[in-house]
């Protein structure tokens, strides 16, 4: 009962935040409100007992993406007001996607249902065998690092490359400044 009450409260706060993200016009306040949105999201994940998802949401959503959004907003010129006609395609797309999601959610198994398909396929095997196979007590770590080791390696390489690209894009200004400085020095000589 308490669990449901906390969930209800957090989701109603989330709705209010979403509405005002839609309403505000200044870029930086949208970024700040998005930070509050992701914080509330990860509180919901903790309440649903998905602590690892909450961890990722806090690190990526609230930490890194807020910083990236702020850096991007610093490079943009001051915003103009958008006309409602320009927003129509995106509104139609958003309504269609949310309808599809609602239809899918109605067909999902209940929270924690032991007969859900995801609990019947390979999970019993993993739970039974993984400790004797690899001698790692945590099953999630076992699956990520041993059963799907190559997968995780590929993911890490992709994320590393993406991070390098973002850093290269965002620091291009300072690099230019340094090269200009060197050129000036050469000219002085």
């Amino acid at each position, binding site marked *: 009962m*308490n*669990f449901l009450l*906390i969930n209800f*409260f957090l989701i109603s*706060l989330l709705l*209010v*935040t979403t509405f*005002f993200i839609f309403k505000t016009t*200044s870029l*930086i*306040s949208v*970024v*700040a*409100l998005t*930070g*509050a949105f992701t*914080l*509330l999201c*990860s*509180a919901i994940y*903790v*309440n649903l007992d998905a*602590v690892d998802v*909450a*961890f990722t949401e*806090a*690190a990526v959503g*609230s*930490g890194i993406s*807020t*910083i990236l959004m*702020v*850096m991007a*907003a*610093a490079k943009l010129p001051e915003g103009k007001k958008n006309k409602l006609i320009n927003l129509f395609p995106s509104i139609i797309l958003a309504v269609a996607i949310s309808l599809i999601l609602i239809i899918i959610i109605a067909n999902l198994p209940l929270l924690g249902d032991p007969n859900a398909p995801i609990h019947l396929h390979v999970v019993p095997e993993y739970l039974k065998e993984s400790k004797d196979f690899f001698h790692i007590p945590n099953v999630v770590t076992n699956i990520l690092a041993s059963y799907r080791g190559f997968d995780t390696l590929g993911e890490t390489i992709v994320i590393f490359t993406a991070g390098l690209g973002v850093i290269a894009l965002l620091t291009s200004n300072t690099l230019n400044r340094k090269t200009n400085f060197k050129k000036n020095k050469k000219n002085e000589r």
Partner: protein
Amino acid sequence: MIFFATLIVLGVSVALCLVRAIKGPTPFDRILSISSIGTIIAIGISVHGFAFDRPDFVDISLMYILLNFLGTIAILRYYKIKRKKSNVV
């Protein structure tokens, strides 16, 4: 029971901070209220862990506070960059 009472108080304070974040006339009000929302949610996660008998979520709330600090610093640096630009022009 006392943990649930604490959770209710924390929830009310999150709602009040959110009101300030939405209404706030200057962006600095928004930054302040969002960083305090982060702090309150970090406290709320640790209290939630004690209320539901799983007090091993305290490290997550620690990480929340660290990241919250980073976000605030980033937004404040944005204003620094903007002020520099306006001085040049």
